[in-house]
């Protein structure tokens, strides 16, 4: 733990370690889960495993690079990056340029590396941009016209783009990134309520518009009602989890991955994890992501500036909530949303950008002080442990609000 002085320049080894462990487990599981599909599609059992490993290598290169560079140096690139990402996301919709899979056009052909998904890169670009925007507009964030409306408009713009790609999953993650950064940067509670309410209504509208989304919702109530039709994927996922029991059937011994469970190596890989490693494995992975969340949010608290706070919060929310949303989907706790499991689900762009984002998070942790941005003057020599203790400390809420929100 970086319990050193305020000018700590040590990387957060625990966060680093957790990321590497999750990636390692993810590579093993994506290999195991994809062998059958990979062989039938490409006559090579390791087609997907190889590509995932290559993208993971690219991702780790990004992670080490971004982890060493001060994140503040990248801030000037934020607006341009967001525009570039938005353009790429538009470009992918152009026929013949984008690749269509399962009726959705979200990918570019990336040659030997498989495909490239701009919306994944968009997550990284937008988290930078929104952190930058929130910090710049911190002074009038509480104002409806100067704060809430522009924020809502930007969010709506991105969401429209994503809905054109029929990408509900990424939309949910983008909402998470935007809202968490806005909230951490000092967004008003009642504005948050307004935003969440509006998004909820939009979600209902979108669901009612698309028949397959509505089917997912009705099917969520009881996947066993139509086990061979609409409930097939959920049913197979639950069969996988259930077969695993406490200890699992052993890594490599899943049967669900042999065509039974659709998207076994992508969105539903967690069911294969459950089948092969049991409740022990699923619990460990869930704890891994929770620990990632704790370290990530801790980095946010220790960030030296508001930009860092928003950036670290946005990235942590992105990865942690994406993971939890995915698990919730697989376990039928929430309806199917189409969210991948970070570090696990097959998807080159996703794993590379997630790792790059983790690098940014490590950078925030490295250049942050033991006492965060919000406590610069009051808590000089705080340790991470004292942060826990402070939860019980009798601090005046008003004083803190005065410091951060206004």
């Amino acid at each position, binding site marked *: 733990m970086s319990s050193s002085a305020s000018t700590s320049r040590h990387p957060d080894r625990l966060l680093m370690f957790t990321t590497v462990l999750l990636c390692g487990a993810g590579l093993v599981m994506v290999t195991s889960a994809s062998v059958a599909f990979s062989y039938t599609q490409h006559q090579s059992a390791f087609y997907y495993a190889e590509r995932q490993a290559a993208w993971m290598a690219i991702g780790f290169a990004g992670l080490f690079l971004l982890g060493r560079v001060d994140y503040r140096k990248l801030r000037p690139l934020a607006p341009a990056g967001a525009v570039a990402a938005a353009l790429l996301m538009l470009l992918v919709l152009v026929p013949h340029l984008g690749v269509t899979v399962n009726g959705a056009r979200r990918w570019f052909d990336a040659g030997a590396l498989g495909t490239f998904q701009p919306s994944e890169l968009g997550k990284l670009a937008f988290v930078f941009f929104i952190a930058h925007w929130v910090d710049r507009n911190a002074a009038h964030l509480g104002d409806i016209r100067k704060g809430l409306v522009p924020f809502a408009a930007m969010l709506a713009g991105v969401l429209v783009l994503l809905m054109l790609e029929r990408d509900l999953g990424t939309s949910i993650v983008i909402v998470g990134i935007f809202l968490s950064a806005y909230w951490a940067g000092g967004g008003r509670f009642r504005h948050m309520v307004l935003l969440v309410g509006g998004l909820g209504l939009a979600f209902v509208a979108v669901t009612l518009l698309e028949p397959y989304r509505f089917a997912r919702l009705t099917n969520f109530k009881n996947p066993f009602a139509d086990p061979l039709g609409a409930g097939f994927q959920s049913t197979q996922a639950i069969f996988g989890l259930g077969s695993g029991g406490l200890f699992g059937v052993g890594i490599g011994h899943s049967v669900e991955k042999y065509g039974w469970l659709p998207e076994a190596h992508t969105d539903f890989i967690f069911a294969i994890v459950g089948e092969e490693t049991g409740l022990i494995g699923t619990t460990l992975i869930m704890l891994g992501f929770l620990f990632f969340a704790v370290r990530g949010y801790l980095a946010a608290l220790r960030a030296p500036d508001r930009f860092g706070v928003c950036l670290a919060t946005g990235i942590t929310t992105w990865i*942690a909530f994406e993971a*939890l949303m995915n698990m919730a989907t697989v376990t039928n706790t929430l309806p199917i949303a189409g969210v991948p499991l970070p570090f696990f689900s097959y998807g080159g762009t996703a794993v590379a950008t997630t790792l790059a984002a983790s690098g940014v998070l490590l950078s925030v942790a490295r250049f942050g002080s033991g006492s965060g941005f919000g406590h610069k003057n009051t808590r000089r020599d705080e340790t991470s442990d004292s942060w826990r203790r402070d939860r019980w400390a009798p601090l005046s809420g008003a004083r803190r609000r005065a410091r951060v929100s206004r």
Partner: protein
Amino acid sequence: MGARLRILVLLTIAALLAGAVWTRLAYWQVFRHVQLSAQAQAQYHELVPLPAMRGVVFDRNLTQLVVNTTVYSAFVSPDQVTAADRDRVASGLASVLGVDKTKSLQTLVSGSKFAYVLRRFPKAKADQLRALKLPGVGLEEETQRSYLPGIASGSSLAANLLGFVTYDGQGQRGIEQYYQKQLAGTAGYISSYRDLANREIVLGTHTHQDPVNGSDLVLSLDANVQYQAEQALADGIKYAKAESGSVLIMDPTTGGIVAWADYPSYNANNFNHTDPTLFQDNVSSYMYEPGSVMKVVTLSGAINQGVITPDTVINDPGYLNVGGYRIYDWDRRNHGNINYTFVLERSLNVGAMKAMQAEGHAAFYSYLKGFGLTQPSGIDVAGETYVPLPSQGQMSDSQYATTSFGQGIGVNMVQMLSAVNVVANGGKYAPPHVVERIGTSINPLVLAPQRQVITPATAQEMTVMMEAVVQHGSGYTSRVKGFTLNQAAKTGTSQIPVNGQYTQDVWASFVGFLPANHPKFTMLVVVRKPHAPGSDTNWTLNDGYITAGPIWQKIAQSIVVDWRITPG
């Protein structure tokens, strides 16, 4: 609101979501584990059983007593029969299999996926049905045990000895039950997993186990003798109007069973339409009081102890007072001074009691033990019943007295024949058994040394006494042409007790071996509750020498011919 609190809110939401997901995970993975595994297995796991071929059974001449045959079952998949074809299919099934046409039509209209039309019919019908090429109709092969036909259409050969096999492969009764494990073998299987496209998954989980076929059994039984025994028994029982009867024939030197007949019997090929009471085997699972046949054991013991000889003279006033009871001879006559040969010839109870008293209770009991009457015979046929004799000290004086002439002691036929066979086998007890070989290994009982119960000299003396029974006594009804001076026998008749009171119903028996000087077989015939012509006025007409003796004679006659036994 401070930054810490804001972050804490986010972390709390994450923790709550994680808690909800984990609860759900634990529910699926632990609470519903068993049920979901089963459902998942049902969807992708396929276990194809590879049945093992059940071993067959041969007699001593390698005549096959049971054959595995293939029978067919017809099924129909109504959902694959179009409405236009229904009538054709139903009438086709009716014409070949004789099933009710309207019933078949009902099945066809139901639109279900699978229904049996008729089960277990022979190949000829299956071929006819196949030729019709009816849509949606299929045939399934099943194996069935076929036993040799018996003396009448309603019976199969040695049914009570062999038993039968249920449709799910379980041996029931007799040899089929006793040797179930060896006959059945071990079924194999092919276990495979399928992917969604029903392709086999060959990565590691594929397992294959070949079946191990059951062992064939070779019996000491002789099918020809068995057939003759069943025929003679049936005739004899019908003549005596008896309730039932049994014949047991043994190879004197090995203890191997040569014939094991029951009447009435049943048809093992039709066991599922048979009154289960007919499955009862009266040879090893019916206890009876052997009566005077026991005198062979009593007198052999006394001679072997040296307390009497065949020529020892005793006084027989026709009764003896024992333990407060007066026990009579069967004829209640004063026979005066007589020797033991005469006792056996006329089957006199007083003589048997005096011989027993001469050797004493302890010695008598030890001979009962030696002759195998105090423990089950251990015959390798399912369902032997046995009533343990009270221990030596617990038996009263009167019980010793009655036991000496075979009343008040319960035995099964295997025990009794094995006991008398000691005399035929030069004083040695040959353990009774039916199976000589299991697969390629010999039944260890055949090779085990036999215990000497009485000396060869005693056995010889007793043989002479039993020859006298045929020549001068009650055994005259069993005389086989050419062996009159060379056959040994003893009759037995005992009243059947009901609720402790002896009734007029009897167990009539006849035991003997032939040729006396070099026995080829020992045979025991038991007739239960005979009502021979004229017995309503003279109940002695139900006696063993009248009812069981002629059966013995008829079978012995045919063995002599069949085995080419020559006198002298």
